[in-house]
């Protein structure tokens, strides 16, 4: 088995520089979620860091719209796998630069604009396992808070989670490497051969 690297959040520029595409990691500490609406809001309204309930600099923004259950003493995470990251490609570079994220996490990888932002800002893209929602929810030890819950609803709100040994793979690093690009280029060659295309 490949050895996983245990990462404690928030991350420093140095932590990120030590990560390369292909590394398996385990996240520990506080992360936040954000998907379509959070990204759109952050870029269009540009709320200041002080407007967010938690300083997201150095942490990981997880593309996830969890299933949450309201209990007497707050919300409980039921299921929390990743959503397709590519949908927020047009916003992510801005969000990384504006808020000083050190990681974004989701599934399926992201495009060239984000890849450049990862290099410029010292950030990595992490892929975790799509659909493994019960397994991943078990790595979230606590729901610390939320932001925009009333306005966006449970799926689209920003949740602040405390995670323990949350598994992910670095698939885009801060040196311009992307496993997604490599796989896509290789499969394109095979596709052209099978479809008899030049």
């Amino acid at each position: 088995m490949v050895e996983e690297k245990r990462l404690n959040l928030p991350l420093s520029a140095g932590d990120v520089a030590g990560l390369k595409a292909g590394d398996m990691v385990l996240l520990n500490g506080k992360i936040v979620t954000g998907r379509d609406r959070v990204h759109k809001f952050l870029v269009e309204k540009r709320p200041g860091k002080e407007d967010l309930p938690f300083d997201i600099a150095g942490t990981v923004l997880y593309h996830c719209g969890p299933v949450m259950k309201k209990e007497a003493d707050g919300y409980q995470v039921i299921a929390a796998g990743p959503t397709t990251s590519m949908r927020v490609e047009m916003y992510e570079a801005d969000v990384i630069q504006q808020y000083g994220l050190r990681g974004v996490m989701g599934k399926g990888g992201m495009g060239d604009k984000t890849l450049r932002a990862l290099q410029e800002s010292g950030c990595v893209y992490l892929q975790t396992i799509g659909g493994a929602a019960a397994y991943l929810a078990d790595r979230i030890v606590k729901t610390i808070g939320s932001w925009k819950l009333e306005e966006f609803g449970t799926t689209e709100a920003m949740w602040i989670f405390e995670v323990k040994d949350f598994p992910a793979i670095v698939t885009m690093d801060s040196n311009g490497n992307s496993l997604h690009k490599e796989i896509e280029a290789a499969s394109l060659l095979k596709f052209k051969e099978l479809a008899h295309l030049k």
Partner: protein
Amino acid sequence: MLKLLDGIVELYKKVATSLPPDVEEALKSALSLESGGSTAASSLSVILENIKRARETARPICQDTGVPVFYVKVPFGLSQNELKQTILEATREATQKIPLRPNAVDIITEKNSGDNTGEGFPIIYFEETPSGSLIIDLMLKGGGCENAGQTYKLPLEELGAQRNLEGVRKCVLDAIQKAQGRGCPPYVVGVGIGAAKDQVARLAKEQLMRKLTEVNKVDELAQLEKLILSEINELGIGTMGLGGRTTALGVKVGVNHRHPASYFVDVSLACWAMRRGRLIW
């Protein structure tokens, strides 16, 4: 229809929290093909562990509990309108109880209805059956894999795709190449061929309800399904798109007659969490 309502809530629970045995078996054999320590092997191990935990703790396999799609076969004399009301009521109850993620969003206000019901939500298809039993099939179709599907109008020059099964083969490979890992492979691939866009889209999605082990009754299509499956797996996209031997678990093709001028092909992808189930009443 109170008891039927309970039955549909139970169907929701079964479909959201457990995978059909044929899909789980296919994922296990996919794992056995990967070499230990690879990202594909580790991803598939987590996927199988997740399936087990979800089933044991009755939690949704995936947080995206999807768009519910119902295929209802109705015996003569039963009211479709009453059935629809029962399905809507069961959907509200299931959303609360299991719970499911509320996924129905109003186009104008962007408001989530909060209970998985809305205009055309869930999707319900009725068909009369000569049998005396009511048969309700349910699929929970996630958004990620739904977004990864494609529709083609043949002939298509950029793919060199003519109006024949060879052209269809090229379309399906193209759809997978474009989807890469974004819709959570290994995929189940539904293909519909026919005269009109709406018809082939429905036909392609319906193919996803077929068991992976089921062989197409039409020889030519059975051969095509087998060929496309093995070629998809040559692409090397793999589990979650990070490389590997299995990119699809199955390919299912359905055909309708076409218009002389038209040849539409729809490719509907399901993620590895291919959630379907049946209630017979």
